């Protein structure tokens, strides 16, 4: 009796260990397949030429403002996860250069705007800035929106055996997100990718569960290119925004959450900022732009997004669906949100010093994390915003 009992207990323990082992190997095998396919980049010769060409990623803008004395030693900011990797890099380099500690909380554009409106942080960050309605609810009054970088939102997928470079059009992406295309071997996807053996697997759509500027850029692009997306969501006012009523899919928190969901789910398709896709070794595809060319997201194809764009006085505008023949169509910037009329001289000086550095020396670091620096004309406009910051009526810069 006792020996038989002991055998049962030993068997139960063995099963427990086996299932734990099976679980972990199952997880890791999907991870390694994503790793190996990422190395087989397949974007075509045209893109190889575009993305391989030399782009000036260190423009060396000059800082004419100089360092203002009396600045605070710490600055707090919150917002976009789209720009969060760059803020981390800038904060670390700026700390080495000036000794000022900048703490940035990556909580999503929606959260950043809310914290900024409540004046609980010195600056906010939203990928699509603030609407006039949002600005009217900001406790500190008039808001300056300062673009800081250019980045790409890339369609990222997890398909074992399929290399990077799958072709997508805005309309097909819209239909996938509207739950009209539900399987990877749908005829629409097969037509765009004739040489690729797409598996018979349902598409696991991944989107953001929090308020996101990345979402705003992505849905703005879908609204422009996919009538199905607009009609499914109920009209152009409802089909784009920091958050939308997603008809289907898994919700991830932040760019980090979406990349994790894509990495763990076979058959997943989601949208993330390019740096997250590259650093997590995820496969991403190419998108057809307005001119009809298939473009790979890289720095060289992101920079032309500002060509021909008329920036309003607030500098708040979308950069999607550009008309340049070599431009990647889903490009966005990120706007630092700063109150125009500051109340504390120390904070105002610290803000001006930090963002003057970001817009000059900081721009040379953008390419390290696969973002593009601002072009000369946009940089000049952004820099001019800094000169508008005042304390008690007197300009700081």
């Amino acid at each position: 009796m006792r020996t038989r009992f002991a055998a049962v207990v030993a068997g139960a323990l063995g099963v427990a260990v086996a299932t734990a082992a099976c679980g972990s190997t199952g997880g890791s095998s999907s991870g390694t397949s994503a790793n190996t396919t990422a190395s087989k980049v397949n974007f075509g010769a045209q893109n190889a030429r575009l993305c391989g060409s030399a782009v000036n990623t260190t423009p060396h803008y000059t800082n004419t403002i100089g360092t203002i004395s009396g600045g605070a030693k710490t600055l707090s900011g919150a917002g976009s996860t789209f720009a969060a990797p760059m803020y981390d890099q800038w904060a670390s380099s700026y700390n080495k250069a000036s000794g000022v500690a900048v703490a940035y909380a990556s909580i999503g554009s929606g959260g950043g705007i809310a914290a900024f409106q409540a004046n609980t942080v010195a600056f906010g960050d939203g990928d699509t800035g603030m609407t006039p309605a949002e600005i009217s609810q900001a406790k500190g009054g008039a808001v300056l929106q300062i673009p800081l970088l250019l980045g790409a939102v890339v369609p990222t997928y997890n398909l074992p055996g399929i290399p990077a470079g799958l072709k997508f059009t805005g309309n097909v992406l819209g239909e996938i997100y509207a739950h009209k295309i539900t399987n990877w071997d749908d005829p629409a996807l097969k037509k765009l990718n004739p040489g690729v053996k797409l598996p018979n697997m349902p598409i696991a759509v991944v989107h953001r569960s929090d308020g996101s500027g990345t979402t705003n850029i992505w849905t703005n692009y879908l609204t422009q290119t996919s009538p199905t997306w607009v009609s499914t969501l109920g009209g152009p006012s409802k089909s784009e925004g920091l958050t939308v009523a997603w008809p289907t899919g898994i919700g991830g928190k932040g760019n980090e959450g979406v990349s994790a969901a894509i990495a763990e789910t076979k058959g997943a398709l989601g949208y993330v900022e390019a740096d997250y896709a590259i650093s997590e070794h995820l496969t991403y595809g190419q998108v057809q732009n307005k001119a009809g060319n298939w473009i790979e997201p890289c720095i060289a194809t992101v920079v032309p997004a500002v060509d021909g764009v008329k920036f309003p006085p607030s500098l708040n505008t979308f950069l999607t669906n550009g008309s340049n023949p070599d431009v990647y169509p889903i490009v966005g910037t990120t706007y630092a949100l700063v109150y125009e009329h500051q109340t504390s001289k120390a904070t105002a000086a610290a803000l001006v010093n930090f963002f003057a550095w970001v817009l000059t020396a900081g721009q040379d670091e953008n390419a390290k994390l696969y973002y593009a620096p601002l072009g000369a004309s946009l940089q000049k406009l952004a820099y001019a915003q800094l000169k508008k910051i005042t304390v008690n009526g007197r300009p700081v810069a």
Partner: protein
Amino acid sequence: MTVPATTSTSPVPVRSLQTRRRYGDRTFRLAMLGAAGVVVLVLLAMVVFLVAESWPALAHYGPLSFLGSDRWAPSDATAASTRPNPYGIVQFIYGTVLTSVIGLLIAVPMSVGIALFITGIAPAWLRRPLSYLVDLLASIPSVVFGFWGIFALIPALQPVVSFLIATLGKVPVIGGVFAGPFFGLSYFTAGIVLAIMVLPIVTALCREIFATTPADEREAALALGMTRWEMLRTAVLPRSRAGIMGAAILGLGRAFGETIAVTMVIGNNVLSITKSIFSTGATMASVIANEFTEAVEPFHLDSLFVVAMWLLFISLIVNIVGKLWVRRIRGDLVW
């Protein structure tokens, strides 16, 4: 009895000793009363606070409109419009109840089995270690369960669920409930994680209940020639049925409020009710955890308070019912 007056020979005046004892006693009682009172006050304050914070949304859209719709679309909300209510919460109640019921359906039979094993079948040297191990499950942090759920449970579930979709998913009428596709994050996964989290509570209670079976009834059954299983089935289980119900209800109360583990494995699909248990969804706790940091649309934050209010009410009612039920069975249990 008169108290003698103090004399120079007695070390401590007897009168002041009695006074000190009376004041000390009273202070102690007041302090303990205060501690108990704080608990009651906090509970009341929480209810009042939730109702007050959700009042703007309740007044704007009407209290019943939240329960009349299963479409949660904050992007549809505008400051002026009141119909239709873009913050329907039925799918969150559905998600909470569904994941908890799946958890209980898995956990209660297992708990009854474990409790029967501990009280009836296991050798004496194994009883205490096994009880400790089951109770140890209760001390694993919730977020660890979520992590384990994503990286270990989901890959292990894939073949099982594919099989269920291929078989049960084809059955007419109920096939829709078991339909694919399965992406790992789902009501079903959340239900399994909840089952493991609820197991210790239900097992501990069942153990107590089975232990109250009079020994002479067990021995009488064995003396009549019944096997061990027959003895358990006839002498232990029938009298324990009500107790097991009570334990299950208490487990349900625990499962309702579970937040972080469920949020990590349920998929966060808040739009409306999804029919299949293998599809993504949301619960009341998970939508609050996900959305409260940037609920900037009109009445969004207030509507999350409505969800919290309903979650509090439902959890309180289930817990009260469970406790009363168990108290009826085992009055001496301090639960």
